[in-house]
């Protein structure tokens, strides 16, 4: 059972719709004591880093997420979710990130239109079981800040400069693009990531070509 962290940042309808189409079981949790007994956690997010951090703190997630990860819970951060898992962001210089993914988040630009909004191609750096056969997919992005490229970067996109589109450390995965908004390529990505996290669907052959 997948648990989606529901802390008021962004709409969850698209993500839940994508999980339904893929056949994954999922539930929302507003607080840490509501999560499923086991299974992957998804940290979604849109909006401002500091506002999201405050909301996560207020609901008790900020202090408990590192424990869940230490216990071996797989965790997927999407968009701002990825950024919150990093070490910190220029968007909130005084606040630090959760540090569950390596690297710093910096503003995009200058010289390009910000936010970076639309479809960009992601080039894979090396193979990872969570995102197997990444075939340089086109994925949908909406963001003004991005994680620097580092040794753990699995997929690189560029907007003005190269940045981390996909990264992983241990059982924690981060996607800067929105897989739930990225057509068939995004659904494939979401499915492979969740399968690697131990989630199964009744129809594991899937319906996505």
């Amino acid at each position, binding site marked *: 059972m997948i648990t989606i962290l529901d802390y008021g940042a962004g709409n969850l*309808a698209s993500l839940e719709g994508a999980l339904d189409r893929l056949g994954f079981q999922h539930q929302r949790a507003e607080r840490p004591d509501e999560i499923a007994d086991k299974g992957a956690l998804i940290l979604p997010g*849109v909006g401002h880093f500091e506002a999201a951090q405050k909301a996560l703190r207020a609901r008790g997630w900020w202090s408990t997420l590192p424990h869940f990860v230490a216990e071996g819970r797989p965790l997927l951060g999407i968009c701002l979710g990825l950024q919150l898992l990093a070490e910190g962001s220029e968007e909130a210089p005084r606040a630090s990130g959760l540090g569950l993914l390596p690297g710093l988040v910096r503003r995009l630009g200058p010289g*390009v*239109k910000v*936010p970076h909004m*639309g479809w960009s191609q992601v080039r894979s750096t090396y193979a990872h079981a969570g995102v197997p056969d990444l075939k340089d997919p086109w994925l949908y992005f909406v963001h003004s800040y991005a994680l620097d490229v580092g040794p753990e970067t699995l997929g690189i996109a560029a907007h003005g400069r190269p940045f981390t589109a996909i990264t992983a450390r241990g059982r924690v995965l981060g996607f800067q693009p929105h897989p739930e908004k990225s057509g068939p390529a995004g659904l494939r990505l979401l499915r492979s990531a969740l399968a690697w996290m131990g989630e199964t669907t009744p129809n594991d052959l899937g319906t996505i070509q």
Partner: protein
Amino acid sequence: MPAKRVIPCLDVKDGRVVKGVQFKELRDLGSPVELAARYDEAGADELVFLDIAATQEYRGTQEAWVREVARTLSIPFTVGGGVRSVEDVRRLLRAGADKVAINSAALERPELIWEAAEIFGRQCVVLAVDVARDPDLGWRVFSHGGKRPTNRSAAEWLTCAATELGAGEILLTSIDRDGTLAGFDLELLDQMASLPVPVIASGGAGSLQHFADALTHGADAVLAATLFHEGTILIPDLKTFLAESGFEVRPC
């Protein structure tokens, strides 16, 4: 630079997708969810829904179809039409829209753009603007579905919206070209090419080359309605054409 986007636009009335000439003789084309799924499959990069009769009583219906579209679609979508307040924006985003388009209400109260951008992030605030050529202003901005002239020039209004007010994207419709199939207003696009936010060109598309021309003249995305609805131009064909013309597009 992200890929250039191809965006079908769907007019919605009372929860149905309709097509009509100047709001007369509306023809029912199907449910928003059905059409959205069809365009998703065809390789559209994004969809825009414009609710042409969004009234107070109708809000429940609107939220229902927006929610259903959000659950079905695997690409982003914008909803506009009758958006008058921060509360309207919140309602549509909650229902699952990725972006909300604001038009007339922003002309009456420009701070609405700023307020919405501040609360929800500028990436989900689209300023929709209808403009027509004008001897005094270059291009004059019109409100109320392109029917009511304002005293604003397009250059002034769009610069203000994109820089000071914080709109995340501009949906720019040429009233002169809309429905003519004569091509986008390329001089208008040239004028707006230096805006710091993406511009969606709308109004006038009639051929494959027209779309390529709009992109050459600075548009970040191209929008059309009837041309796609009637199958005059198929999205995969358009994308192939744009790719062959040297533009980066997401393969279908």
